[in-house]
């Protein structure tokens, strides 16, 4: 008896931990920490995005060895990229724990800043020269150079402004697409996803046929934007439409593995069964992505073939790593919750009655926890069933059409009666008001 009591308590603890978000689950995370290979992770990405990703991992992982590893890599990366702002951030967070080589180097920062200043001045004079000559193409190039320069040094909002300015000097649709890609890149790093959506649609509207790689990039960027704005269904659509041409061409923003994970999770959380079959399981394009992350492929297949227990188990295994993802961590809880609810709903759907004990086994949870979850779902009208709490059985509820029709008819009738009466009354009041006003100039109520 005692043993049985402990199980729900442990399950409850697990759930509360899970709901607590990143910080809470970070504490007992040695398992995840060992799983995460920072170097391999960072190798998936190119360019500036590695820096914030590494710093994010350092901040969230909660294990010192990993934290330092991530910080060390961020430090090296920042030094190579001459991003003084993030360099300072990384160095301060290392705080001397990695020996003298990783101490904050003010002299280097100053030198870099000085060089950057000179370069900036040079670029600006060049641009002014182009402006004086009114050569559109050169002005565009000039702004692009300045944008690249700012981006390289981590001044994202300045880079954003420069890239936006090239817009007036675009002469071909190729230029427009280039401008859009730049803006999208910077906006994603700035976290301004409204711009991303805007410029994706702008790029898609250009009259010329787009390169399949560009299309794939745009789809991925749009998916990311929808994910961040919590429109999971749309996000899933976009990720699923992303072509295999993406490959590692867009690794300054997103790795193909990420497309697989984001797409699969969003789809599981928001698609119904038939959509899941046609758009995910049978989608040849997307299968290429899924092959990259076998765990996710497995869990999608598990979900589709109703092996919810192992599906949820896979999800749980992936969770700690996914919590360290810079884009997904915020949405992970919602997505996981939705997937779990979907699973529960689908489980109950074909049955007239379900034994809660068997169901709890399938979902690897206790009966009482399951009962609570079911009760919540029934209250939200997501499951049409009622629980026999005494015998621990869930009975599907078949609405009596005849009674429901009678009830509705009577209700509509009385509503109609009430509304019409109130309306006539108001109409009369208005008529009266109208008469009064036409009789005397003003009237006090």
């Amino acid at each position, binding site marked *: 008896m005692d043993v049985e009591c402990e199980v729900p308590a442990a399950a409850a603890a697990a759930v509360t931990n899970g709901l607590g978000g990143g910080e809470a689950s970070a504490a007992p995370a040695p398992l995840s920490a060992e799983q995460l290979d920072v170097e391999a992770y960072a190798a998936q990405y190119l360019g500036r995005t590695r820096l914030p990703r590494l710093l994010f991992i350092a901040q969230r992982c909660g294990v010192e060895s990993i934290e330092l590893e991530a910080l060390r890599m961020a430090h090296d990366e920042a030094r190579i990229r001459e991003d003084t702002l993030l360099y300072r951030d990384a160095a301060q967070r290392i705080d001397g724990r990695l020996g003298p080589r990783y101490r904050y180097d003010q002299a280097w920062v100053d030198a870099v800043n000085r060089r950057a200043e000179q370069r900036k001045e040079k670029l600006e004079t060049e641009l002014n020269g182009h402006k004086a000559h009114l050569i559109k193409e050169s002005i565009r190039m000039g702004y692009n150079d300045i944008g690249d320069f700012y981006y390289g040094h981590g001044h994202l909002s300045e880079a954003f402004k420069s890239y936006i300015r090239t817009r007036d000097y675009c002469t071909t649709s190729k230029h427009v697409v280039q401008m859009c890609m730049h803006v999208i890149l910077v906006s994603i790093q700035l976290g301004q996803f409204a711009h991303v959506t805007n410029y994706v649609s702008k790029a898609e509207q250009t009259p010329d046929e787009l390169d399949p790689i560009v299309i794939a990039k745009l789809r991925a960027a749009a998916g990311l934007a929808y994910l961040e704005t919590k429109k999971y269904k749309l996000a899933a659509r976009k990720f699923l439409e992303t072509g295999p041409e993406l490959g590692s061409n867009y690794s300054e923003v997103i790795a193909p593995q990420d497309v697989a994970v984001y797409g699969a999770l969003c789809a599981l959380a928001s698609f119904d069964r038939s959509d899941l079959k046609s758009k995910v399981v049978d989608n040849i394009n997307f299968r290429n992505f899924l092959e990259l992350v076998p765990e996710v492929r497995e869990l999608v297949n598990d979900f589709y073939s109703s092996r919810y227990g192992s599906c949820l188990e896979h999800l749980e295994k992936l969770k700690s790593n996914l919590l360290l993802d810079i884009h997904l961590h915020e949405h992970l809880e919602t997505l996981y919750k939705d997937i779990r609810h979907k699973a529960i709903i689908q489980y109950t759907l074909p049955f007239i009655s379900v034994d809660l004990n068997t169901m709890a086994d399938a979902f690897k949870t206790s009966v009482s926890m399951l009962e609570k979850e079911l009760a919540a779902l029934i209250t939200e009208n997501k499951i049409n069933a009622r629980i026999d709490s*005494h015998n621990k059985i869930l009975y599907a509820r078949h609405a009596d059409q005849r009674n429901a029709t009678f009830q509705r008819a009577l209700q509509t009738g009385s509503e109609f009666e009430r509304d019409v009466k109130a309306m006539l009354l108001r109409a009369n009041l208005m008529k009266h*008001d109208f008469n009064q006003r036409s009789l005397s100039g003003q009237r006090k109520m």
Partner: protein
Amino acid sequence: MESVETLVAHIQALSGSPEDLAQLHGLLKQADGDALRAHSAALLPLLPQLHPAAHSLGYLFLLDAFLSAPANLKAHAGGDLLATVANFLVSCSAEQIRLSPDKFLNVCKVLKSEAMQLNAPIRGIAPLRAAVRKVQPSSEHLTPLHAEYLTLCLLAKQYKAGLSVLEDDIFEVDQPKDLFLYCYYGGMIYIGLKKFRKALELLHNAVTAPMASLNAITIEAYKKYVLVSLIQNGQVPSFPKYASSTAQRNLKNHAQIYVDLSTCYGNGSYSELETFIQSNTEKFETDNNLGLVKQVLSSMYKRNIQRLTQTYLTLSLEDIASSVQLNTPKEAEMHVLRMIEDGEIHATINQKDGMVSFHEDPEQYKSSEMVEHIDSSIQRLMALSKKLTSIDENISCDHAFLMKSGRERGRGFDYDDFDSVPHKYF
């Protein structure tokens, strides 16, 4: 200058045919004012010479002249005067008094204030009810007396007496203020009878009536509207789009604490609601709404238990207690029992193992009562829609309406302009 005695003689002579009455009305109007007022004190002894039913018009003028002097009221304070007036109201002739409704209203108001002064509002109820019926051209008309009558019912706690007036549907209104008061007091009477659905209808009318500027009656009505909505439906609907913009914009500011209460209720936590109410008891008390607020609080149990019936087939009393935040299974049993008795849920309690089984609504819509009920609804609705059609026809022939819609048609044909009935019903 005729003396009062001649006037009385005239009244006695000219109370027969309608022509005579018209003449008498002219005479009385001439005499009214200084002539009658000067002798007002002497009028009371003359009244017995007249018959309240046969000489109603004259009686009314004399009575009004007498009552409008405050000194007379003071001199005759006590039950006798009240009895005289009440007797007149009950027996007077409806046709005659309708010639001079203002005076009749005055007399009624004096009756009401007298009854209140004597601390016996119940004595005013019967005569005022008779007065309401007499001064109404039809049962669809709202008169200023409605509000007075309902106040007396409220004060005397004779809520059932109020129903006789409230059960008629009101369509014709002269003064908006009458309507606001009627709706407010009517709502309170229904609240007193715990007929919250009807109360809600009346308060809803008060809140959504067209108004150019906000008035205190509406604010008070809105406060009660919020509370009754919570008790009845568990939530407060937002303003419908036909509510006046004044109400939509300002009402919430004037009843902030009630809005807060409804948001707190929406969270579904009993203890939270209880603390909120306790910390604001004073404010609710000054509004005289504390009783209702307490009912809101206890309605939360009911709502939560009702929600359980949607979710469970069987549930132990213990689980019920814990999920609706009651302290003991015993209390839960009490609540469930009471709700079963009131027909709010369908369930059986098994005391042996402390289990409650919830059932579906046993109504099968097969009984003859139900058929009768449905039939009567159909009849009512048919009558209503006939009325609607005739009103629609009237409006489409209305000169002012045609002028306005004709002008708007110039801008482009819009079908909605001609739809006086809400679309959703078709």
